[in-house]
């Protein structure tokens, strides 16, 4: 088991955002979490990334409890989060954004160079724009930059929060194609999405969240064929 979330309870401000949430991910899987706005999906990812501390419960990653350690240390454990609102460094070049993604490697230049070449192969457009300020990129390119930046630390687990948000359909397809490629190179992926059909298409398994609780879980094909899921999230 790569990641185990056990009965966590988290608060967002004063309101309870997660109650008794448990999930587990095996190495090499793509797992998605679906749910409406405000169901607590982002809070779940933030809790795993250490940005929100759970009041109860545990997060265990590769056999080690990570729920009480600081966010910047969790990156070193091998978990990175691509946040929903991107959080790029707008007045820095694309190259420097990527370079900072490999912060945990310190001055290991060989490693950093190799990772940057890898990211450029995955997203050739970033190479074209490497000297441009990140803030001048289009929404889709920024999304690529955020994913690329997260890959710079070679995470065991990559968490993506709404990677399709605000992107044109063609760009969404492109991003999900890359998510598949990343997974094929043995990075485990935890994906949070509102776009249920595309998420279930790429994922092996899925969880459904409603009002801070997990209400359903199963293999993607089971969820795709489930009447309730069809009605609530797939729109037919």
């Amino acid at each position, binding site marked *: 088991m790569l990641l185990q979330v056990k009965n966590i309870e988290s608060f967002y401000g004063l309101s309870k955002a997660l109650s008794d949430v448990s999930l587990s991910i095996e190495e090499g899987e793509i797992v998605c979490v679906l749910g409406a706005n405000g169901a607590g999906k982002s809070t779940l990812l933030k809790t795993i*990334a250490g*940005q929100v501390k759970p009041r109860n419960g545990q997060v265990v990653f590769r056999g080690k409890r990570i729920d009480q350690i*600081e*966010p*910047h*240390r969790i*990156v*070193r454990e091998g978990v*990175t*989060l691509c*946040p929903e609102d*991107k*959080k*790029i*460094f*707008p*007045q*820095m070049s694309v190259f*420097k954004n990527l*370079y*900072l*993604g490999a*912060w*945990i490697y310190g*001055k290991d230049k060989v490693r950093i160079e190799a990772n940057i070449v890898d990211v450029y192969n995955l997203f050739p457009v970033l190479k074209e724009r490497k000297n441009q300020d990140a803030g001048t990129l289009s929404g889709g390119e920024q999304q690529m930059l955020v994913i690329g*930046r*997260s890959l710079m*630390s070679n995470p065991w687990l990559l968490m993506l929060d709404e990677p399709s948000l605000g992107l044109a359909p063609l760009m969404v397809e492109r991003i999900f194609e890359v998510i598949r490629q990343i997974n094929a190179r043995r990075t485990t992926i935890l994906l949070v999405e509102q776009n249920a059909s595309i998420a279930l298409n790429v994922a092996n398994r899925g969880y459904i969240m409603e009002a801070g609780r997990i209400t359903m879980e199963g293999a993607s094909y089971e969820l795709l064929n489930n009447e309730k899921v069809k009605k609530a999230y797939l729109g037919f």
Partner: protein
Amino acid sequence: MIALGLTLIYGVLQIPNFSHGALYMIGAYVAYFSIVSFGFPYWVGLITSVITLFCVGMFVERVAFRPLYDKPLINAFIVAVGLILIFENGALAIWGPEFRRLPAPSSAVIELSGAIITMQRIIVIAAALLLIAAVHFFVKKTRLGAAIEATAQNREGAQLMGINVYLMGGITFGIGTSLAAVAGVLIAPIFLIYPSMGVPVIGMAFVIMIVGGMGSFLGAVAGGYLIGLLETLVSSYITTYFTEVILFGLLVVVLAIKPTGLFGKGH
């Protein structure tokens, strides 16, 4: 230089550090005592002061400001004002109210095409240019500098990269206060050292920072020269009584035309 330190701290931590002037004063005192009481040469006194104030800065950030990061800004405001009282009255209680003069490292006087300048003033100007270049190099060209800049541009994003943003805040605060210390030590042979010497300076530094654009590095440098020049011109050609009126007038004009300051990015 003071405005530069202030800008650095504001840019990364979003703290308007009103106690910066008091830290400048402490920097001057530290140098004074290491030079006059312990008999160190001027340059050793300068370095002692810089190192001491770097540590003081990190300590102040850790103890006074870090617990307030997630709180409303007004808390940091109040703490900064409180720190002025602590530092100034502390200095008054320990070192007394008397004015002290730090001997200049060189008393040479230079004649430059008719103008007479003391060596110390040339040192101040040269040091300011050197430090601006050094800080710029540090932020733009080093790994640690890049992490600090990243923290300033997107704190949460930096944290998600595994950067310890708290440590970056501390280091920035330390660098900012050491810049204040350098300013204090360099200016001490020209002016005098006394517990409230930071008061007129901090007001000016804030004017420079606001005119230049809050948190803008270039703005602090350009604003510094602009204000310095204006101050000199006004006091030598018009009157010394109105210097401040005109400076704050400039502030009002700049804010009216461009509310984010000359080089501000706006939010």
